[in-house]
């Protein structure tokens, strides 16, 4: 491609690029990156966030997502890309233990947090709360996926949510929520617990 075409293409992208740049903390320092020369911008964008990677769910569905988004959040994917085992042109990352629905949600989470990084705390938390408004099975699937992909902040979020599900509830309720049918105590032990903590039951 001729340089002129590249220039035009990049100039067309500039507004979007600026937005992305601010989102990924590549802030213009002292105006340096704001120089409108496309070559500089191209340089800055080398290894660029425009690169996409393919994630393959357990149902063999392919999801295409920006590399920078996943690399920022998932330790596993970051490691895979860093050590070069992932070939951008051909390969897809197989995630056999994550199904499509969950994978889409995970990608949603990562993308939102990457793009809305600068939003204030309350808005982010409100979005997170909405995001986790799923049934317990859905929550479990998300937890497993986040655990597998090692997405630290999503994990913390889910743990915190589950912890809040437990907090303040009575034991019978907790057993119902977590579907614990066999508590494993002998009848004497259960009896003892009920006597010692009657207000928990």
């Amino acid at each position, binding site marked *: 491609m001729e340089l002129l075409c590249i220039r035009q293409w990049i100039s067309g992208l500039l507004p979007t690029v600026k937005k992305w740049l601010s989102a990924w903390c590549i802030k213009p320092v002292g105006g340096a990156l704001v120089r409108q020369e496309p070559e500089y911008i191209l340089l800055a964008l080398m290894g660029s966030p425009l690169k996409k990677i393919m994630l393959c769910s357990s*149902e*063999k*569905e392919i999801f295409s997502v920006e590399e920078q988004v996943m690399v920022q959040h998932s330790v596993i994917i970051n490691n895979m890309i860093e050590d070069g085992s992932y070939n951008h042109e051909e390969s897809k990352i197989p995630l056999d233990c994550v*199904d*499509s*629905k969950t994978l*889409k*949600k995970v990608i*949603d989470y990562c993308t939102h947090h990457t793009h809305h990084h600068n939003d204030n705390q309350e808005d982010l*938390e409100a979005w997170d709360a909405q995001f986790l*408004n*799923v*049934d*317990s*099975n*859905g*929550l*479990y*699937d998300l*937890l*497993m996926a986040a*655990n597998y992909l090692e997405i630290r902040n999503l*994990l913390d979020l889910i*743990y*915190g949510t*589950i*912890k809040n599900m*437990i*907090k*303040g*509830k*009575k*034991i019978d309720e*907790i*057993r119902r*929520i*977590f*579907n*614990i049918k*066999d*508590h*494993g*105590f002998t009848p004497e*032990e259960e009896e003892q*617990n009920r006597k*010692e*903590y009657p207000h*928990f039951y």
Partner: protein
Amino acid sequence: MSKVFGFSGVDNFCPGGSIYACGNPKEASLFLPLGPQVDVYFPPRKRSRISAPFVFNGEWLEQKQKTSIESLPDECLFEILRRLPAGQDRSACACVSKRWLMCLSNICKSEICCNKSAAPQSSLSVKEGDDEEFGGEGYLSRSLEGKKATDIRLAAIAVGTASRGGLGKLSIRGSNSDRVVTNLGLKAVGHGCPSLKSLSLWNIATIDDEGLIEIANGCQQLEKLDLCKCPAITDKGLIAVVRKCPNLTELSLESCPNIGNECLSAIGKSCSNLKSIAIKDCSSVGDQGIACLFSSTNLLLSKVKLQALTISDLSLAVIGHYGKAVTDLVLNSLPNVSERGFWVMGNGNGLQKLKSLTVGPCLGLTDVGLEAVGKGCPNLKAIHLRKSTLLSDNGLVSFVKATSSLESLQLEECHRISQLGFLGVLFNCGAILKAISLTSCFGFKDLNMVLPPSSPCESLRSLSIINCPGFGNATLSVLGKQCPQLQHVELSGLNGVRDAGLLSLLESNEGGLVKVNLSDCVNLTDKAVSSLVNLHGWTLEVLNLDGCKNVSDASMVAIAKNCPLLCDLDVSKCTITDTGIAALAEAKQFNLQILSLSGCSLVSDRSLPSLKKLGSTLLGLNIQHCNSISSSTVDMLVEQLWRCDILS
């Protein structure tokens, strides 16, 4: 089932469950929008074409779910539970299921993370239960015995006490049942009870070094450790405790065959606060260990008990030389210690602070040995010798001559001691001896002796002769003359004592007897008791006539008249009738607190009013085996004497 789903009716066969379970991933068009409506959004169903052998309901759905929230892997459960702050919630979760309990008990203090409060401005306000210090100050104490001693109970205790003040004292008595305490339980305690101060483990064969190491890591404020019959614990575990718990002050080891010298030398090197050590029946402990223990410079033991060990004279030599801070020494059943050991111990001149010495069945304690000990311990105040069969009168007397500060002498089953030795002690004791006690010394024979005049022993306050069959009137009268200041007299089980002997003792006594125990002296009669209360009633506080069959109502009348200070009276098995009790009740200024009438079969229901009258001051009443008192009377008594503790 898969056959059913292989049926290719796309629109008209719509199961109610998650579409992904049906195994048709190729149908991307069935990719549903996300959100909680997943299970609800479906095109309208027609009836299935195949008569399905199952029913569409929730149960079926659950069967199809292979993974869901109850099958959280352990590490996820751990992460969730560790975010719960110490408090009510943790205790509640400990009761949810066994798995949760074990997971909770594995969380130690450093792993709990408190969640950052959502609204930063409320960081100063503390939610209920959040600020409770994990592990507390150690106010609580728990004890598990027998069948209840299981890992689960331990885990529950560890989690439950963490938020309610913390566990300070734990004692576990094992048993031979199936469910036992293992290292897991101790691990839970180690993680959850950082304020544990006293731990006592008895009879637990399933605990070994690992468990003790967990305790050492987690409970670094441990002060007292008591191990008994724990055969799997070896030096390694105990060394870990010794190294990590700098506050250890008391250590007691019994019947732990695998704990030996290595551990004792580690104690000698690392423990600077250990004050009391008791080692009993540990076959691996030998001279080397004891030597290291005592010869270390930073360890100043004050209470030492060594029993049933294979140590020899060398250990005693070390103790005698290095035991500079020892104040209480107990040596029981040391078969390899000989006379030389005691002699060297006495001559070592190290036991300067020794106040109390107790020596059990040791063949090594002979006259020579005892005398050396007497000479070498200038501050010895109390000595208790049991079963010293080789000790003779001469040895005893020379010992008493050699000591300069002896206040209390107790002899038990020393059969070579006779009244010569006894009297020798009295003559030679100087003005310091306060208490003498002889129990079961069969060497006594009551002989009429003509004794040289000598100054009486003014300092003796307490005399106790129990079950020495040869003790009789003659010795008693000599005693009376020799010890005029007695306050506490105990003559128990002495058939040879009769009224005359007791009378002479009472008459010689100038100080006034305070406590008199004449139990089982069957030959004493009312005459003796009457003289006793006549002469000494104005100081008498405690009178015990248990088993004196010949004592009857006349004594009770005398007691009632003469003993205003009496607070404890025991007339069990005496020939007391209702008249006697009535007489007691009529006493003026009577302040009786404890009355024992057990075995008095002649006391009947007619005593009820007298007992009620006495009951105004009584705190304890024993009417066991009073066959003539009916149960209705007993019930009435219990009802009316509500302040009194009644045994019936």
